[in-house]
């Protein structure tokens, strides 16, 4: 447990001095290299064991010549070998080759008996069954979260006397007393002032309502942060940066466990209901990945293999976004673009299946009562005009500016939280932010309503049937059609709504900076969309009034005929939402697809793309990273960015360890170290692996062995194997070295040796080395010079080097 501390102290590998290579005569060394095979066989005095040609289910990384391996029949796989420590990176190559071995074995065995055939068929199907289960579970949990969040949000304002479990909308669903002017009021729904002091009018009632609102908000926030603190500290935050890192090969034990799942689900509802400026989309992705991880334990194929498990997690992330937005295709693209690291084609199809199943399950649960998956699905199809591209691009610029501003300020605030006293009082911080949010939010009706409802109202195109304040236009026409309304002058309601919305915009911009990153589950899709939607609607109404009052201008005259529906403010709100979301997260394709799945049509693709691209370019000009990458860098996770090019001309020997003045590289020899020597090496150093060489003089590479596997194997051997003592020789060769009589028995550890470690020469350009690390998912790479082992480059070294080249702080990379 907690060996990440050891990883933190990892000083990298020590340097073999250049002297050792210059001392021995180069001719002799060069001659030795082609003779490696000969060298090996000369030590084979002991004849090989007969007949033991069992197929090797070993943990080697796809070794050369694996066909004829003799296995000691006393050997069996030791539990724990091949697993990883917490906060370490997995070895993708090893995991993938293990899976291929397993698959080969099953296929070969399937010809033997019917049971084996059934086993092989079920193994092939297990992936699909797992996707089905993930979809079902994610959909059900999303339905639970949606329904509970709706109810608890309205609990701050009152209770339904018809049935305590109904929220405001459902309470008045069947009521006979709903009027056209006030679609929300009905006698079955009682606000707190009505319950406590029997009246709803007057200053005192207002104060009572205010007080109860703030009280409930504080209670929910307090419960949320206490539950997170006591049961599952990993449940706080958004989850997407950590999931990105996990999917790239990092291990965080417990991050996707069952307690984290339960606590995240429960506290997400509490956090959303407390009126804080946060969303639930990011945490839903975390919830879906937890479901994926937990369900993986039912299937052997995924439980034991970390690489296969990450394929499943990619698909689960797609299912999470799919239920959050009701956009299955957008979910798959989000998983592909934002979250996943390796995304083979097979995963694409399976992710789509999981996303569809999840969306279907959510639809069956029907959380919003109208067979829609998301609260703000819009269905208008009014056309847009070419000159409107100018305001759309303006919205894109706004989105980019806001994105860059938000990222910079939020990271600064999170850094403050990390380094100063502020971080020592998480509960108090949450309570204070909630109190400020609630106190500021209640007076303004647009901040009082939940953010999803706000977005839904802003996306809505005003028709004759709407009677909200935002739709208070003066109807000076006499057509009888309900939908196709011409542009109308704004009434008083619209003007008051405008300045209220402007205040809302300012408040949301400021408060989200302090909310995202607190120790409760928090997402930022919905707040960004809200900011963008408000800005868009303001601009849209402005344009609409401009077109009405100045319809004789050239622009409007040529495109808008008088009395036609020219400008749709709802569309501006949508474009603004897309622009802001793109500016913060730097999503491109997935954003456009999610937005067009939300609107149900291809008509608005061009405005959405124009705004998304503009916002991305503007935001990229101001800051390189999206919010999730910025958080990854803040936390120091070992995430090797797959999208950026490495453009410097450094060589492998500039980066490798040991450096010039460091002590020699710590190696193990293939057959001349005793158990005690190895144990000393392990306890004196903290490296996560050791290269194995033929001998210290020759430094010719045999393979690479991991620290964890060594520890477990030696411990197991001391317990189980007779006669293994501290002076027993450990050998990694095929057969035991010749030993004089009356020496303690030797210990063979060949099965934990990786016989095919990746090597580069010291003059390899770092561009190629970084590319190799990215494409193959390596943890470490050995550096050779003229065929001799010279040093090692680990992933952490690569990350530090990249950070150094980009003039960032190389010490901020914490993990290995």
């Amino acid at each position, binding site marked *: 447990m907690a060996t990440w501390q050891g990883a933190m102290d990892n000083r990298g590998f020590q340097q073999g001095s250049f002297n050792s290579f210059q001392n021995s005569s180069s001719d002799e060394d060069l001659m030795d290299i082609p003779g490696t095979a000969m060298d090996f066989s000369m030590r084979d005095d002991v004849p090989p064991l007969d007949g033991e040609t069992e197929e090797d289910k070993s943990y080697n990384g796809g070794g050369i010549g694996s066909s004829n391996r003799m296995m000691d029949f006393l050997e069996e796989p030791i539990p724990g070998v091949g697993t990883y420590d917490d906060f370490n990176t997995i070895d993708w190559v090893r995991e993938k080759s293990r899976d291929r071995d397993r698959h080969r074995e099953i296929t070969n065995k399937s010809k033997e008996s019917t049971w084996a055939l059934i086993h092989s068929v079920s193994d092939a199907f297990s992936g699909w069954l797992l996707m089905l289960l993930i979809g079902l579970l994610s959909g059900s949990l999303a339905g639970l979260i949606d329904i*509970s969040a709706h109810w608890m949000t309205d609990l701050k304002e009152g209770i339904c006397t018809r049935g305590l479990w109904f929220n405001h909308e459902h309470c008045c669903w*069947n009521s006979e007393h709903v009027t056209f002017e006030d679609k929300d009021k009905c006698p079955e729904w009682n606000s707190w002032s009505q319950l406590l002091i029997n009246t709803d009018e007057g200053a005192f009632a207002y104060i009572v309502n205010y007080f109860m609102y703030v009280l409930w908000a504080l209670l929910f926030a307090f419960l949320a942060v206490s*539950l997170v603190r006591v049961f599952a500290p990993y449940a706080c935050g958004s989850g997407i940066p950590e999931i990105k890192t996990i999917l790239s090969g990092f291990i965080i034990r417990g991050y996707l466990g069952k307690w984290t799942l339960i606590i995240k689900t429960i506290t997400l509802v509490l956090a959303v209901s407390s009126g804080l400026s946060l969303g639930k989309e990011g945490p839903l992705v975390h919830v879906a990945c937890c479901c994926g991880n937990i369900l993986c334990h039912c299937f052997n194929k995924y439980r034991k293999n970390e690489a296969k498990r990450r394929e499943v997690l990619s698909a689960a992330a797609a299912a999470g976004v799919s239920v959050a937005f009701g956009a299955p295709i957008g979910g798959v693209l989000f998983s592909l673009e934002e979250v996943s690291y390796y995304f083979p084609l097979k995963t694409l199809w399976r992710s789509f299946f999981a996303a569809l199943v999840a969306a279907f399950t959510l639809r069956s649960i029907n959380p919003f009562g109208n067979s829609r998956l998301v609260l703000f699905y819009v269905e208008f199809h009014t056309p847009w005009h070419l000159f409107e591209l100018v305001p759309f691009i303006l919205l894109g610029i706004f989105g980019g500016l806001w994105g860059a501003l938000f990222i910079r300020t939020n990271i600064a605030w*999170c*850094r403050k939280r990390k380094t100063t006293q502020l971080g020592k009082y998480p509960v108090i911080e949450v309570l204070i932010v909630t109190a400020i949010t609630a106190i500021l939010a209640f007076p303004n009706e647009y901040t009082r309503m939940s953010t999803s409802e706000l977005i839904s109202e802003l996306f809505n195109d005003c028709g004759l049937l709407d009677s909200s304040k935002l739709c208070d236009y003066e109807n000076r026409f006499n057509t009888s059609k309900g939908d196709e309304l011409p542009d109308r002058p704004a009434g008083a309601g619209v003007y008051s709504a405008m300045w209220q919305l402007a205040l809302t915009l300012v408040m949301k911009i400021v408060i989200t900076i302090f909310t995202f990153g607190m120790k409760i589950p928090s997402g930022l899709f919905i707040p960004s969309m809200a900011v963008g939607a408000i800005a868009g609607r303001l601009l849209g109404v402005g344009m609409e009034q401009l077109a009405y009052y100045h319809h004789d201008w050239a622009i409007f005259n040529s495109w808008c005929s008088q009395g036609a529906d020219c400008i749709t403010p709802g569309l501006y709100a949508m474009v603004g939402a897309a622009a802001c979301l793109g500016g913060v997260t730097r999503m491109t394709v997935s954003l456009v697809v999610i937005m067009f799945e939300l609107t149900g049509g291809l008509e608005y693709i061009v405005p959405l793309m124009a705004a998304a691209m503009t916002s991305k370019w503007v935001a990229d000009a101001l800051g390189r990273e999206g919010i999730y990458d910025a958080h990854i860098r803040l936390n120091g996770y070992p995430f090797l960015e797959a999208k950026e090019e490495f453009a410097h001309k450094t060589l492998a020997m500039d980066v490798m360890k040991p450096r010039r003045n460091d002590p020699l590289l710590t190696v193990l020899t293939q057959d001349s170290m005793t158990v005690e020597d190895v144990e000393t090496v392990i306890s004196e150093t903290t490296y996560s692996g050791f290269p194995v060489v033929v001998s210290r003089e020759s430094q010719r590479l045999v393979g690479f062995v991991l620290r964890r596997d060594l520890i477990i194997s030696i411990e197991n051997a001391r317990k189980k194997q007779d006669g293994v003592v501290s002076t027993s020789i450990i050998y990694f060769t095929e057969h035991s070295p010749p030993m004089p009589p009356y020496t303690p028995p030797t210990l063979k550890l060949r099965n934990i040796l990786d016989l095919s470690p990746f090597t580069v020469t010291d003059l390899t350009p770092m561009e190629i080395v970084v590319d190799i690390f990215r494409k193959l998912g390596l943890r470490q790479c050995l550096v050779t010079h003229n065929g001799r082992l010279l040093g090692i480059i680990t992933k952490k070294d690569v990350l530090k080097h990249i950070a150094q080249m980009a003039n960032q702080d190389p010490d901020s990379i914490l993990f290995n």
Partner: protein
Amino acid sequence: MATPWGGLLRLGSLLSLSCLALSVLLLVQLSDAAKNCEDVRCKCICPPYKDNPGHIYNKNITQKDCDCLHVVEPMPVRGPDVEAYCLRCECKYEERSSVTIKVTIIIYLSILGLLLLYMVYLTLVEPILKRRLFGHSQLIQSDDDVGDHQPFANAHDVLARSRSRANVLNKVEYAQQRWKLQVQEQRKSVFDRHVVLS
């Protein structure tokens, strides 16, 4: 390699999960079928027309009858005006499942209540009980700063997990201790050292 018992256990849990998933689907379908008459409505919104103010009409009616003529009663206008009035009205058929809502809220509140009780027990009651039982405070040892100083102790841990435990109660106690240690580690990483999730 998994022992036969392990394999059977996993098969059993897989089957039970599939059964659970199917039963969720069935429940959803059943709740659809057993529709309360209260859970179906046809909602017609009619905007202001001439002298009549706007009005909203609700009626419990089948989907094919969901239009202005069936729902709007009493009709506020007469004769030829009815058609003009009805053209402006928008009628929508909606259904919901109040059973689903009720069940979901009850499930959520019960889980929340259980967690709150457990939290109160862990933070307040258990230390008091332990102090009474053992005389002096013998709360969880913070032995977890072992790190890599004793690498072989770690291996012991890994190997010990694979041995089977005889007593069920011991197993539960052991699992709970391990879980508490894990949570403490997590709490340290997140809240104290701020290395993850800052």
